[in-house]
């Protein structure tokens, strides 16, 4: 790894994404996106519905391509990064396969990528234990609650140890209590593995608590209006939520969001 370059996981320069350009249904989903993300950062994307958070994630994942602008993942084109399996993605919906048991779902990427059977088994079980679903390995997805399904999706995204984790509102379906536990869990995984995380959320406190930086976005057209550095101490613990600085940052992010809304 070339140290000075390897540090830059995502580089976006003047990226635009226009859906159905030229037609009546033309939507400028993203305009002039400039963003650099360094290795090991935890970035939250926050903003009202329709501001292009999922679109930005899907651009990074090479599930769609930018209309123009420059986008680099680990100094490669997004396409090459996808072929190199540089990222794991947790979609807005869990997207588990009905016909596979929970553990077989977690094994899916390992199967596709040709890991040997014994590695698949042990790795998948480890990942399930990590999201506290070790006992549900033999269940089918429909036997789990929505929140549990989402945790399986997280275990699946982590299974092949990608260096970049893209998460689209992974905890949207969880209750407050489970959500806080999963936040701690995610931070633990992040600290332990040094993975880079891009995390979409609608919750300001969650974004502040988890992130090293919070990216505030606005809709129509989708743009980045502010990037807030979160200077809360590590490790983030239960008491972090009681720090005055924590509340200050929440207020800052909230105000940026409100400004963006023109209110």
């Amino acid at each position, binding site marked *: 790894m070339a140290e000075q370059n390897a540090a830059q996981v995502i580089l976006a320069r003047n990226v635009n994404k226009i859906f159905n350009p030229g037609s009546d249904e033309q939507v400028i989903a993203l305009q002039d996106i400039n963003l650099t993300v360094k290795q090991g950062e935890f970035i939250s994307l926050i903003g009202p519905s329709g501001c292009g958070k999922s679109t930005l994630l899907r651009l990074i994942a090479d599930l769609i391509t930018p209309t123009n602008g420059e986008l680099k993942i680990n100094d490669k084109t997004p396409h090459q990064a*996808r072929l190199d399996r540089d*990222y794991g*993605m947790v979609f807005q919906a869990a*997207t588990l396969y009905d*016909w*596979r048991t929970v553990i077989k779902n977690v094994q*899916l990427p390992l199967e596709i*990528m040709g890991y040997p059977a014994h590695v698949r088994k042990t790795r998948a079980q480890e990942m399930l234990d990590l999201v506290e679903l070790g006992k549900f390995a033999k269940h089918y997805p*429909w036997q*789990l609650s929505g929140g549990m399904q989402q945790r399986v999706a997280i275990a699946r995204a982590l299974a092949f140890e990608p260096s970049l984790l893209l998460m689209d509102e992974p905890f949207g379906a969880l209750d407050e209590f489970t959500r806080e536990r999963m936040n701690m869990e995610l931070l633990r995984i992040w600290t332990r593995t040094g993975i880079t995380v891009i995390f979409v959320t609608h919750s300001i406190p969650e974004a502040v608590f988890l992130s090293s930086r919070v990216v505030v976005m606005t809709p129509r057209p989708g743009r980045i209006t502010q990037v807030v550095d979160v200077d809360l101490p590590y490790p983030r613990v239960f008491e972090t939520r009681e720090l005055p600085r924590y509340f200050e940052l929440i207020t800052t992010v909230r105000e940026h969001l409100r400004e963006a809304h023109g209110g």
Partner: protein
Amino acid sequence: MAEISASLPAFTPKSRAQRLREALRYYLPTVLVAFSVLVIWELAVRVLNIQQFLLPRPSAIFEAWFEEFQTFISGGGSILFQASGATLYSAIGGFLLGCGAGVFVALATARWTIISEAMMPFAIAANSVPIIAFAPVTNNWFGLTNPASKMAIVAVIVFFPTMINTVRGLTMVEPRQLELMQSYAARPWKILRALRIPNALPYILSALRVASALSVIGAVVAEFFGGPRATLGVYITQEAAGFNFARAWTGIIMASAIGISFYVVVLLVERWAMPWHVSFRKKS
């Protein structure tokens, strides 16, 4: 989950008597309905004095069947059972050929969506054609008494619904599930194996269920156009022409029994192949 585990301590294995009683409660209504239909049928024929060529008594049908059954188990060549065997052979042979070819063609063209999509209108049109009308033609091709002539008709009848359903199952994949595969940079054949084929399984098996019923119908009707004496279609027409209506009805009963058993077998295969499917999930 909470409800299940909460009810666990109260769980005790059911005794044999208990299970028997439950089975009885489950099947009793069906048995009662069948029994009453037979009784009403029997009474109606006797009281209304219905001519036997219109509708024989169930008891007469049963007598005729039992006679054949006794010859059969005593090893003295029962033509009814021989005919049932022959028809079953044609039906299963045609089923395997036609369904096998249907699934194969769908899989072979799955890689090239354009080809399978181009084929679909023709397949759907062909599926609406009364293929059974070609029975005289296949009789000429393979020979009237050659079981291949019946198998060919059955195979063509079941080929189209199987192929159409398989193509649908392979292509009607949720976009999100496909995106997941893309995010793994999965090769097309891995997508086929890990996503498209499992996705198509319910479609294929429901096609097979339909095909199982169609294949028995196809075989019997194809035999109406002629064939060896020992086939159900020929047996039914000949006995009816000879005014042996109770015996003709034994042929109909055997054809029905074959059709239903075949259907049930496919249903069991379906359960075994996809225990995860919505329709088999336990309610409790």
